[in-house]
């Protein structure tokens, strides 16, 4: 590099530093944990970067507090996606990021939430067909992030990367994980190898498949884990690297699509099994008119006597029973005894995800063999 160019680059870096400092000031307390140092090259981002749409569905990552030691009781004001982009000028090194706010207005959330999910799913599908978009990042609260991501994984026909991200600490929290998670999510969405692998979840420098990721800890930053399965890849400091890809059906290869779903999904509820769990819990659900029940069984998917008897009564009314395992890991198997009892094995899905798959399956069929096939394939 010539002396002239080096000097010019220094001037540009200095200018970038000033810009970042100004931006950091302009968002006030936001992102106070991001050091005001510009990486070299920030002033002149490379040309021809991928276009990434940054969709906000809110979450802790958009939460703020006045005290940076407030890591649990945070809330308003909520950041807009524009605030994130302003606080992270480094995003310009890896992608052209366009913000889009798909949050529901405060206090006016859809009931059931799946109505909002369907709206988001339709939008994702639209962006999938939009030639000006190369990848999509969706922010989300972490508590049910895995459910929303799995729903999208099943009903959005898309090959482009769709990356769900959140944070465990609010944007203003000391040692907040949000900034790096968001930066890495954009990197993953901007990576060609992320396409065609289904909906992804990227936090804490890991990349998970929506189907297999679960929140495992209330507050730790390493909360998202694959219980039976591991990461698909990593967002390391040097590169985004994929090791494996999921083999279960998803996104472009799914038989479900948001455009052909009914206005609302069939009612399916979840029951937790425990010693002496009484059958009347199940009877009450049936009385309410549910179409399916997911029982999170003990051990390898066992039911209590009360549940077993109530399940038989439910089945005579056409209610489909799926059993998962409360053991957290492991498959509920397709055994002769279970077949005899007309119970659909929930594979290794957690009950909240088995519920979504059963809701979708019931939009197509009530045939138990067909629903079992669906649980084997998705």
């Amino acid at each position, binding site marked *: 590099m010539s002396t002239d160019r080096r000097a010019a680059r220094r001037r540009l870096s200095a200018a970038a530093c000033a810009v970042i400092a100004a931006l950091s000031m302009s968002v006030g307390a936001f992102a106070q944990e991001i050091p005001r140092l510009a990486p070299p090259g920030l002033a002149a981002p490379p040309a021809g970067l991928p276009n990434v749409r940054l969709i906000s569905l809110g979450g802790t990552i958009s939460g703020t507090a006045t005290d940076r030691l407030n890591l649990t009781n945070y809330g308003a004001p909520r950041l807009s996606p524009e605030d994130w982009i302003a606080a992270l000028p480094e995003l310009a090194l890896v992608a052209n990021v366009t913000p889009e706010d798909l949050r529901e207005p405060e206090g006016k959330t859809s009931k059931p939430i799946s109505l909002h999910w369907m709206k988001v799913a339709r939008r994702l599908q639209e962006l999938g067909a939009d030639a000006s978009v190369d990848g999509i990042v969706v922010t989300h609260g972490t508590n049910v992030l895995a459910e929303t991501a799995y729903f999208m994984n099943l009903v959005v026909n898309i090959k482009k990367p769709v990356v769900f991200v959140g944070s465990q600490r609010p944007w203003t929290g000391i040692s907040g994980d949000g900034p790096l998670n968001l930066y890495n999510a954009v990197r993953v969405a901007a990576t060609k190898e992320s396409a065609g692998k289904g909906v992804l979840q990227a936090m804490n420098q890991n990349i998970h498949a929506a189907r297999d990721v679960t929140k495992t800890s209330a507050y730790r930053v390493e909360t998202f884990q694959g219980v039976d399965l*591991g990461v698909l890849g*990593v967002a390391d400091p040097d590169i985004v690297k994929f*090791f*494996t890809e999921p083999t*279960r059906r998803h996104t472009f290869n799914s038989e479900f699509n948001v455009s052909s779903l009914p206005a609302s999904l069939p009612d399916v509820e979840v029951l937790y099994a425990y010693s002496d769990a009484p059958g009347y819990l199940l009877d009450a659900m049936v009385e309410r008119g549910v179409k399916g029940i997911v029982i999170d069984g003990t051990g390898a998917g066992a039911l209590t006597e009360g549940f077993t008897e109530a399940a038989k009564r439910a089945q005579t009314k056409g209610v489909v029973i799926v059993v998962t395992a409360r053991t957290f890991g492991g498959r509920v198997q397709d055994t002769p005894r279970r077949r005899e009892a007309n119970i659909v094995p929930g594979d290794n899905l957690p009950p909240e995800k088995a519920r979504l798959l059963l809701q979708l399956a019931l939009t197509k069929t009530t045939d138990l063999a067909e629903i079992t096939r669906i649980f084997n394939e998705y």
Partner: protein
Amino acid sequence: MLQRLRLVPVLLAFTLLAPLAAFASGARPLPTIKMFTTGGTIQSKGAHRLKLSDYSDGRVTPDELLADVPEIGKIAKVEVVEISNKGSGSVGAKEHLALAKQLTAELARPDVAGAVVTHGTSALEETAFFLQLTVKSDKPVVVVGSMRPFTAISRDGPLNLYNAVRTALAPEAKGKGVLVVLNDTIHSARFVTKNHTYHVETFVAREIGPLGYTDSDRVVFYRAPLTRHTANSEFDVSKLDSLPQVDIVYGYQEASPGSIDGLVKSGAQGLVLASGAGTYRNALERAKAKGVVIVASDRKGAGRVTHHKDGPDKGAITAGDLNPQKARILLRLALTKTHDPLEIQRMFDEY
């Protein structure tokens, strides 16, 4: 014990006759599985059934091993070849090359559905990764062992062996590279490592997890590996009968650089660092000056060694997430083709 041994001929006869009976009754003939035995705990006997360590009171023959699980005869016709009968720490280039060549040849037979290799567990991952890089076939190759000897109470060998055969027969196992099956779990040879000295759940891929499971109802897959392997590998050992010397140097505080100089003197063409050490710098420069290729791996057990900021030629060749013992296998094969650091880094990125 004696009673068991008397049963063997009966069980063997059953194993041999079962497919014939099926054939005679008009059912489809059973698929053929080629099985190679190398030794290890799965072929070890202890003096009594509570002997769960220090078992070296006898060896199990390949026929004995197979006759021990007559259920296999109901799902496959198994042809056994003995490669060796020793612990995995004594397995090396000779066995690796013999296995790679014979697996490639046998899997080319249209009537062979897949292959099983039985192996000691301590260094199982090294042999499995070597086969992942050198077997020219997309048919399933399953490496299996056991944590408890043949004679032990609650031994894991029989179910492991049965599940290995089931996996080798599974259509979904095709094209997924070499698989390692123990304890109901299917791992990729690329990612698996031994994680515990004695427990049956010893094999793990710490961050990446398994590819699937061998549950009672079916063999189930959730993942396919994305690294290059088997039929798609560029490494060809068909004409080789030895491999370059590559050794591992462990990094720790105040490590003596003498190990590096000594290994270079003994003929090492490549060295893998299981983490570096401040004291290694000059010795590594001396080694490089003699044409020895250095690859940086790590002793931590999880995570990638990221690319060097100055590149593989001016900086260092990095092993990514390959542990030192697997980085050694890959570097060995790389050195059969090239000494160019850029090329070797590409191989570490792709395999």
